[in-house]
């Protein structure tokens, strides 16, 4: 029995990591196609950095993701701290409202937002992308932060007040340091949600504000270039760097807490 479980576990790992390994390997493939391997080259990396339009979409995606993650985290902190203390009427309804965008199909939200923006004549671009991505990442950020805030001793803010803290000092000296792992988790989660979003972006990106996932998706029609593999490899490397910077043990804690 143990051997079977062991075997399945290994199989799952192989399945999970084969695509990642494949992307990295093919990003160095001298052949212009993924069907054979002709030796090593850095050609695709060079082409990637020379592909101005691809680099432009990368910049757009990064910018949108950073703004979205930051705004979602800030609003999430406010929600979490407010709701951690509030026990009155309407708490349940408020919680449901926050989580609702997670349940409503994204495509519905996307269409709805598009019609709102076109009626109000808001030009599509970075702003509309950020607003759209906020809708899907805010619930995630809020839930991560709320589970962490709910674990805090409710006497802590009172103790801080008693010891002379203004509300802002209570935040900077007590809440923020204690919520920091959750803040990092919420930010990273919002960032990746935004960075990899396709559905919302499809409706909300304007001319000149195409995001990276949209660009990759549309290039499927013309055929994938090996540069995409190089880009994938670089993104994997970036993720690895983040994990190492945050620290593996910290990362595990963040992920456990975010499921809290």
């Amino acid at each position, binding site marked *: 029995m143990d051997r079977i479980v062991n075997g399945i576990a290994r199989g799952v790992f192989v399945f999970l990591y084969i695509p990642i390994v494949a992307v990295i390997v093919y990003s160095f493939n001298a052949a212009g196609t993924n069907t054979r391997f002709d030796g090593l080259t850095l050609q695709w990396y060079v082409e990637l950095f020379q592909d101005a339009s691809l680099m432009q979409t990368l910049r757009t995606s990064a910018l949108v993701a950073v703004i979205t993650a930051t705004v979602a985290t800030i609003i999430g902190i406010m929600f979490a701290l407010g709701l951690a203390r509030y026990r009155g009427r309407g708490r349940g309804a408020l919680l449901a409202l926050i989580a609702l965008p997670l349940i409503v199909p994204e495509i519905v939200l996307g269409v709805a937002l598009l019609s709102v923006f076109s009626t109000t004549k808001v030009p599509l671009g970075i702003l509309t992308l950020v607003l759209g991505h906020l809708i899907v990442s805010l619930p995630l950020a809020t839930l991560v932060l709320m589970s962490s805030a709910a674990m805090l001793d409710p*006497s802590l803010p*009172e103790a*801080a*007040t*008693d010891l002379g803290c203004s509300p802002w000092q209570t935040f900077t000296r007590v809440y923020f*340091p*204690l919520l920091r792992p959750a803040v990092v988790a919420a930010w990273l989660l919002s960032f990746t949600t935004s960075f990899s979003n396709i559905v919302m972006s499809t409706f909300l990106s304007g001319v000149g504000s195409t995001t990276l996932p949209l660009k990759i998706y549309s290039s499927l029609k013309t055929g994938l270039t090996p540069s995409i593999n190089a880009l994938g490899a670089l993104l994997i490397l970036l993720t690895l760097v983040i994990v190492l910077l945050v620290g593996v043990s910290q990362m595990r804690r963040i992920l456990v807490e975010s499921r809290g």
Partner: protein
Amino acid sequence: MTTQTTSAAADTTAPTTAPAVEIQGLSKEFAGHLAVHPLDLEIRENEFFSILGPSGCGKTTLMRMITGFETPSSGRVRLGGVDVTDVPTRNRDLNMLFQSYALFPHLTVFENVAFELRVRRVAKAEANRRTREALELVKLGHLGDRKPDQLSGGQRQRVALARAVVSGPKVVLLDEPLGALDQQLRKEMQYELKRMQREVGITFIYVTHDQEEALTMSDRIAVMSEGVVQQVAGPEDIYNRPETRFVAGFIGSCNLLDVQAPDGAEGEEVAVEVPGVGTVRGVLGETVPTPRAGTLLLRPERIEVRPAGEGASPGVVGVAETLTFLGEEWHLHLRVGEHLLRASVSSLVKERDLPGLAAGDRLQLSWRPQDARIVVR
């Protein structure tokens, strides 16, 4: 406070003769229900003052109004003579020791204790010196680098106390601080708290439901029930001269007999009829203008128990129903008419005067009139 807050009206120096805390007509209403009825209270300088009552009696709400966490529905709170009713908590010259201790888990013991001094921008050298002193006071000078989760419950409690006294506030409020500790540690901490209170010379307001804690540590006790302060007095007076039926029943063990109290002045010796027992003598615990329903309060240890028929003094005769040996004393349940009276007899007296006492024996009960108090509240 010796710290350098600039904004607080509460920091204005007041004459030292003013009571540490003065409460006038303070009340709190929650959704139409009076959690604390309008009450007056004066807590003196350097006093160990306990607010004692069962859970839900309003003691926590009263304490939270003193700290400023709760806004009173009516009344004023003065701290050292200065009205602080509208002063926010952070500018009140008092600190609180929370039931959960509320230590900051991300800070070390030293940083926890130094917290207030740093927030109030006390010069670093001075802050460090005072933090070390506070840690010495609670005998934890060697654990400054630990985090709270590396400490035992008793140690955490000491850290919380050091943090509460480090800035030298006028008043420290303690919210059932011994609740989470085991029995042995509780006893130790009772004496420790009292010692530290004397050492730092700060007024302590101790909120508890544990009568033993209140009796051992306090200079004075306010007994609360259902939002009303029943009696404020020293431990001995609270125990020996309870003013209400509730106080007598809540503090220690007491026989409570329904009687018709005759009119008379406080302290007057009167004869009252106890239904099913007969006429007994007692003293009025308060002035009664006209006869009314009251309670005769009689502590078990104040009842003298002798074999029936011995001596000439007439008294109440009862039948022993149960005898319980508790080491230093015996507890007896005595059937007198429809009543079951509790009496306690020291082991010495039992051996000397009542050898061979068994259930079913008839006993003669007597007490000094002044030990049987009659109250009408």
